[in-house]
């Protein structure tokens, strides 16, 4: 099982993603620097959290315009599974790979805490491993996690089962408590919570393990 993590300047959860993938696949992921023009041939790509380009201008905006993302777009169309956590989700929306936008938290404050979530769609390729389990807790740690999309988009996401995770107790003002969504084809997941920080009982719990097993196992 080969995986990769795309690293932008100040993508600082790259190590979190690297540790999680190494732990679950038994093999270090390939760390891909944003200046590369082509992704290596892998089975799964993670866009990590962090503050790419300092979150300057808008979170994820500058990273989304990098060349590696152009290549990612092409491979996404061909069905490559991709997940963006936190800043990775912001990058995916800014790149237009996922709909909507992530705005400043309603409280205007950065928030870091364990966040209870509900798995809304247990059939997505990122959640099958949960076997119908509905409640999980993942850490959240973000300033701009307030999910917004226009009504038409939201209706479409809901109807298609693209809303995969909802907050149980909305921490940031997201519409419909949306915490994570997939694209229409279902091969791209974006979510603000950090499942990669929930793969170690001594760190953030173990609720995230099944997410990785689901997407990797389905391959």
């Amino acid at each position, binding site marked *: 099982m080969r995986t990769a993590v795309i690293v932008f300047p100040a993508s600082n959860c790259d190590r979190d993603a690297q540790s999680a993938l190494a732990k679950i696949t038994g093999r270090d992921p390939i760390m891909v620097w944003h200046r590369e023009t082509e992704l290596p041939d892998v089975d799964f790509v993670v866009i990590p959290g962090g*503050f790419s380009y300092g979150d300057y201008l808008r979170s994820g905006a500058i990273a989304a315009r990098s060349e590696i993302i152009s290549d990612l777009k092409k491979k996404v169309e061909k069905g490559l599974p991709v997940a963006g956590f936190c800043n990775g989700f912001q990058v995916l929306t800014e790149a237009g790979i996922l709909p909507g936008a992530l705005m400043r938290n309603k409280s205007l404050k*950065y928030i870091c805490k364990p966040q209870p979530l509900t798995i809304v769609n247990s059939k997505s390729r990122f959640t099958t491993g949960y076997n119908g389990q509905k409640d999980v807790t993942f850490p959240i740690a973000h*300033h701009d996690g307030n999910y917004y999309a226009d009504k038409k988009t939201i209706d479409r996401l809901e109807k298609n089962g693209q809303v995969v995770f909802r907050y149980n107790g909305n921490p940031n003002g997201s519409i419909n408590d949306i915490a994570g969504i997939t694209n229409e084809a279902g091969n791209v997941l974006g979510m603000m919570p950090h499942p990669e920080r929930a793969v170690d009982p001594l760190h953030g719990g173990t609720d995230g393990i099944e997410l990785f097993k689901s997407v990797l196992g389905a391959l």
Partner: protein
Amino acid sequence: MSKKIKITPEVVKEHGLSEGEYEIILDRLGREPNINELGIFSVMWSEHCSYKSSRRHLGKFLTTGKRVIQGPGENAGVIDIGDNHAIIFKMESHNHPSYIEPYQGAATGVGGIMRDVFTMGARPIANMNALRFGEPSHPKTKSLVAGVVAGIGGYGNCVGVPTVGGETNFHAGYNGNILVNAMCVGLADQDKVFYSAAKGAGNPVFYVGSKTGRDGIHGATMASAEFDDDSEEKRPTVQVGDPFTEKLLIEACMELMATDAIIGIQDMGAAGLTSSSVEMADKGGVGIEINLDKVPQRETEMTPYEMMLSESQERMLMVLKPGKEQLAFDIFNKWELDVAQIGKTTDTGRLVLKHKRKTVCDIPIAPLGDDAPNLDRPHVPTPQRDVLAASDARPPTDYNDAMLKIMSCPDVASKRWIWEQYDRHVMADTMDSSQSGGDAAIVRVHGTNKAVAITTDCTPRYCYADPVEGGRQVVAETYRNLCSVGAEPIAITDCLNFGNPERPEIMGQFVGCVEGMNEACRALDYPVVSGNVSLYNETNGVAIPPTPAVGGVGLIDDVEKHATLAGAKAGDTLVLIGKTEGWLGSSLYGREVLGHERPDVALFYAPPPVDLASEKAAGAYVRRLIRDRRVTAVHDCSDGGLAVSAAEMAFSSGQGTSLKGHGDVPLHAWLFGEDQGRYLLAVDENSVNPVISTAQSKGLEARIVGKVGGDNVSADGAYDLTLSKLKDANEGWLPGFMAETA
């Protein structure tokens, strides 16, 4: 600017130099200095850079030990944690800038301390912050809290280093002068530790990071001069932090450090290019020549004076091995950072600056350090306070009210509102942080089974009442907090915040605290490896309470074997290690319930004494119990005594606690007394007897003081409150305060 300014007595005075100091400059130069040279002497001899009031006292500290690789004198202290790993750490203040501009002041404080750590080759793995604000009712307090916390989070979160713990106090003594002390802990390989000495002549001097602007010129002298109400009006340019550049700087430096290109490296902190170049040359025993035209500049028309004194952030100076220039250019260009070769080391022992083809400074380097003033300021000890007998302190009229009051008073109230704004988990190794309310944060050494424990502590009200005893207590409390999680305490860093040292009573506080701290360090074999002094923390002649904040670092060999407060299980027995006499002098109970510190009452009693020998024995025993898995939870007894400790254990574990068995000690003094050297343990029923008997065999007092379980937090004959009600009071205060409208 350089030639035209005449050096009049006024100009000398404006630079904070005394007549005597100026005489020395004239003598060492054999001529009048020009303005650049005067500026350089002025910042190098400022309190901030020269430690002129404190140096002779700091020299007494225990600074060596079997695990010390580098003590004070470098950018940060270095300790050996085995397996070729080194932990590098330091704490520093950013008090004055944070009062003027809380967000940027705090942010740049975090940035600065991280640079001190990664400049030595360590990747920062954890940040801590020790904060002191004015009383909540002061009109500035709320916005200062909001700004400082946002600034610390804004910087640390963006750089991607977890902020894992800290402490926060509120007291009228900080109304006009808050304290923002930041600590950073980094991890390096022992054979890849970098120092600042610029050894050898003819080596290239490199400047990397951000461009130089006119930021914070005179910042170093500002940090060394007392505030008056005008300072807010003068509004010195505060620096803006750029955490994104800092992150790139860390990565780029790490990449260069992996090669063998670097001879010496130093961040540009206070007094920027001046102190970094002078210190590097001085330590290396060389001279240095800089062409200022090569310095990357953000502004046009910058003068040599401005460039040398600028405190623009996110900049480093390094001396490389000849032939490694291109390698450095390539790495820093890759990270899109400014990089320039600005000069070279020389064998002249002089600092020579060129600007537009002219020599604008040519001075010997040695006097900048050797002749820096080293004052023996007069100091008088703080008068002894009376001891308050437990029987002379009245019990509360209503125990439930007293307990609620203490648990929700600003110093004890939960700081969740603060630490939820900090990313505590990034980097995948935070094993315990503020989140559990624990005594020390625990951060794993990446890829291993080892961990470091980190804590910061200070009890300013003890230090105010008795600086020597307070100094002992500060060090002992960090020691205890490390032992509480199962870590072997190794070494400390400190940040000594005091008022104006020119006043003998303030200097007396300083000298007293240092003496007490040093005594504790020696008794506990717990050396000081780095630190920082911040003086002149006063406004309009009112000094802050003496606040020698201490950051302690310890080692956990096997991270599976650590303790937190959260592990307590229903049915566990509560065992108290250490002797309880019911010491209420300088206690929170005295302040919050009896109103001792109210201006109209103003009663100050002797703080609890610390018995350093039993401190050491108790710590060793608790560590052993944790290692042998004899205890399910541990918490030390500090502010608010046993009652607060048991309540906090209840909050963290979600289990009620009930206390019982005060014996001969008056009930209120047993509950709220702040006798030192004590640990509250939750022990499985089957282990109670051995835990107690072994303690006794070691000469330690150990008693059963209650039980874990149920929905209430209670003490027999005193208070009985539901866990949820008490927790609401504890959790509610800070968010309520921050939400109140002005």
